[in-house]
């Protein structure tokens, strides 16, 4: 596996079944460092389940996930976060009662060092003690992270900075999505998974988000994107993967995929071919 140009993320035969339904069915995927691959497909195609498998929120029934050549299949989400994998959620899962600042600081949790010494067994107790005593090293770290959060929030213009101390539940839907992305960026991710970052956004907000994702890509961030807005997908992606009923039905550059008859069929419905049995089972 340890080739010179091994992909950053590599999925092989990834499968997840729920009862009789195979939500993710033998998916292979390679994502090179600095690349941006988009996953598209109709609702219920298994895209979010795939994200859950990659980020450890769910375990595959078969197949492997490797990250930087190491097998990370079935590792806990905590450990994957510590390895630099960050994600946003389709429905927007901000911490409603936390301020914008605290939400994004949680994103930086895996980068806490001074207050979280890597000592076995008594590590948690030291963390409690340091949190209460707050020596200068801990205060400095906190201060540094707060400055960093402000810098991240500044990427969203005046959307979030003026609301930095407001609880997240009071934000608009679009702003909550932005907070989620800010939180993911605070992790300093090596791999970023974005689950429909523009869902529920109007055209100008979508354009803003698209510009931000393009900027992140230009900075060298590796991104796996789930998105329904094909315009954005075509512009940003190095490669597009189309999923339907858990399977990969097409893969390639945006334009090629767009004109693939299988893809058109998946989006327009299954009435054209003999898959109606599967449909009724689902």
């Amino acid at each position, binding site marked *: 596996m340890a080739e010179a140009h091994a992909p950053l993320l590599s999925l092989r035969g990834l499968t997840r079944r729920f*009862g009789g339904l195979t939500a993710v069915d033998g998916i292979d995927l390679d994502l090179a460092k600095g690349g941006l691959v988009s996953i598209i497909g109709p609702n219920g195609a298994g895209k979010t389940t795939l994200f859950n498998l990659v*980020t*450890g*929120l769910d*375990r595959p029934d078969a197949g492997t996930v490797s990250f930087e050549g190491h097998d990370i299949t079935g590792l*806990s*989400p*905590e450990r994957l*976060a*510590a390895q630099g994998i*960050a*994600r946003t*959620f389709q*429905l927007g*899962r*901000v*911490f*409603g*009662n*936390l301020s914008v600042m*605290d*939400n994004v*600081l*949680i*994103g930086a*949790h*895996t980068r*806490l060092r001074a*207050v979280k010494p890597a000592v076995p067994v008594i590590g*948690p*107790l030291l*963390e*409690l003690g340091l*949190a*209460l005593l*707050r020596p200068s090293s801990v205060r400095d770290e*906190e201060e540094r992270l707060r400055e960093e959060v402000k810098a991240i929030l500044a990427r969203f213009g005046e959307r979030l900075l003026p609301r930095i101390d407001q*609880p997240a*539940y009071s934000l608009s839907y679009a702003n909550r999505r932005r907070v989620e992305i800010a*939180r993911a960026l605070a*992790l300093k991710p090596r791999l970023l998974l974005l689950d429909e970052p523009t869902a529920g956004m109007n055209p100008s907000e979508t354009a803003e988000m698209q510009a931000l994702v393009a900027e992140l890509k230009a900075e060298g961030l590796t991104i796996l994107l789930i998105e329904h807005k094909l315009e954005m997908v075509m512009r940003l992606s190095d490669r597009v993967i189309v999923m339907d009923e858990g399977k990969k039905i097409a893969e390639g550059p945006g334009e090629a995929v767009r004109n693939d008859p299988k893809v058109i069929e998946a989006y327009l419905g299954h009435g054209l071919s003999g898959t109606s049995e599967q449909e009724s089972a689902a």
Partner: protein
Amino acid sequence: MSSWLDYTINGLIVGNVYALVAVGLALIFGVSRLINFAQGSIYLVGAYIGWVAVVQLHTPLPLTIIFVAVVAALVGVIIERFGLRPLQNSVRIAPLLATIGISFVLDQLVMLTFSPNPRALPSQLPDVRFQVGGGTIGPLDLLIAGVGISSALLLFVFLRYSKLGWAVRAASQDRDAAMQMGVDVNRVNQAVFGIAAALGGVSGLLVGMYYNQIDTAMSLQATLKGVVAEVVGGAGNVPGAVVGSLLLGLVESYGVAVFGTSYRNLFAFLLLVVVLVLRPNGLFASARQAPPEPLTGTFIAPSRPVRIPRWALAVAVAAFAILPLLPVSFYILQTLINAWLLGMLALSLTLVAGTIGQVSLGHAALLAIGAYTSALLSLTLSVPVGLAIVAGGLMSAALGTILISPSFRLRGHYVSIATLAIGEIVSLVILNWESVTRGPIGISGIPPLSLFGYDLISPNSVYWFSFAVMVVLALLQARLLGSHLGRSFRAIRDDDIAARAYGLSLNRYKSLAFIFGGFAAGVSGGIAAHLYSYINHETFNTQQSILALTVVILGGLGNVVGAIVGAVALVGLPEVFRIAAEYRILIYGIVLLLLVRFRPQGLLGTI
């Protein structure tokens, strides 16, 4: 009654009784994803209604059963209509707290109406026993089995063949879809609560007759047993609840056969903890399923906490500190000492239930651990009292965290069940571990409070000591909330999935919250032990856990100042208004219900 067959029959009969409670719980969980903590209270009501019917109205047995079923069903319908329906669109913690409050109000109403003394509930059946193989069986056993089996059949027919039954099944499979298809979910809920209550009430009647005794302590026991059976069978799974109940009955019966009667409940709760840890979705669920609680939605009521300026807090602390120097009565000081002790417990619970969202119903167990540790250390090893109290706090922190750790993977209602059971286990261990805890006799002659060799006996010194300890604990907790741990705890409470995705280990942070909270509760228990000079396994009971929970909700979940304000209010106001002791718990229950309904964020707001 020594043969294994007898124990098997007994286990199955008791299991049948549990099944009547558990099936009701399963029906309610199926439709509203709610564990009804008031189910045991309906069972209690059923037993006392039965007593009225049998002893005062002299009704024949069939009429008694029907009478109990109808009255209990009515109580169930009222609970649903006025207690839970108004909360349908509120935060997830609200219905959980409401059923706890309803349970307390019902229990207290029964206690006030009938007095807490046990009563005899004579069986209306002839006292004969038939030989069956190597064991014996009586007519009451047959009646219980008959009622159990026929209710199961009736329920099956209802769910399978009646239109309302279909609606119940549809609503429990997919509530939203059922609503869109025109199912009246309110009517379904009402029917389910009515049926569950009728079954629960009849169960109470039968148990009363079986043991020929009813008392108000039955309620909590029934809730616990029913919940254990239901969770073992898989929450919301009606046939599973029946099997879980029979299994629980057998486990208890065999446990009693081997170890003796006082271990009965210990086996029930150990079974629960084992199932929750190994198979949180029950024995009959497939190995991996979607989590039992919804993934989205806010757990606690969002609010903007009331900000109290620092100088105002400093003034308040100073005012309370100089209070003993003013001409105030001993009575007021005594009341405030109680408030400070409760305040420490509330600080602990507001961190655990409020800040990190683990609604503990067994918090009094932490008091007990601290109290016993401190009392025993000072008595048997002559450890100085000040040091012993600190040791009590540390022991509570350590032992409490270890005991609660199996529940760290659980959410919402399940945490409450697990903590309730763990609280009961602690109390049962204290009762049974006689060589250390002196069992039911309790510990007497505990030395009074002292610090650096000086006894603190005068009311003033006790007041200052407890106040100072509480203020220090509160300051520490405020500092904790201001650190990265404060936001980490709150993030886990708001959305544990997202928290994990950002590297927050639930085990690590729930442990830290329980360690910190356990220390405060243990210190409170330690101080109490030296003040009371006598403690036993009942000194720190579920009522205190519920009182602390009410304090925490009153002050605002997670709110440090709120916990203390709430403690002073709930200890002080009944004194001010001279409310008789027996009405106080009723009032706490009503306060809890009103808060959940009208001000879920508490007085000072959740943090």
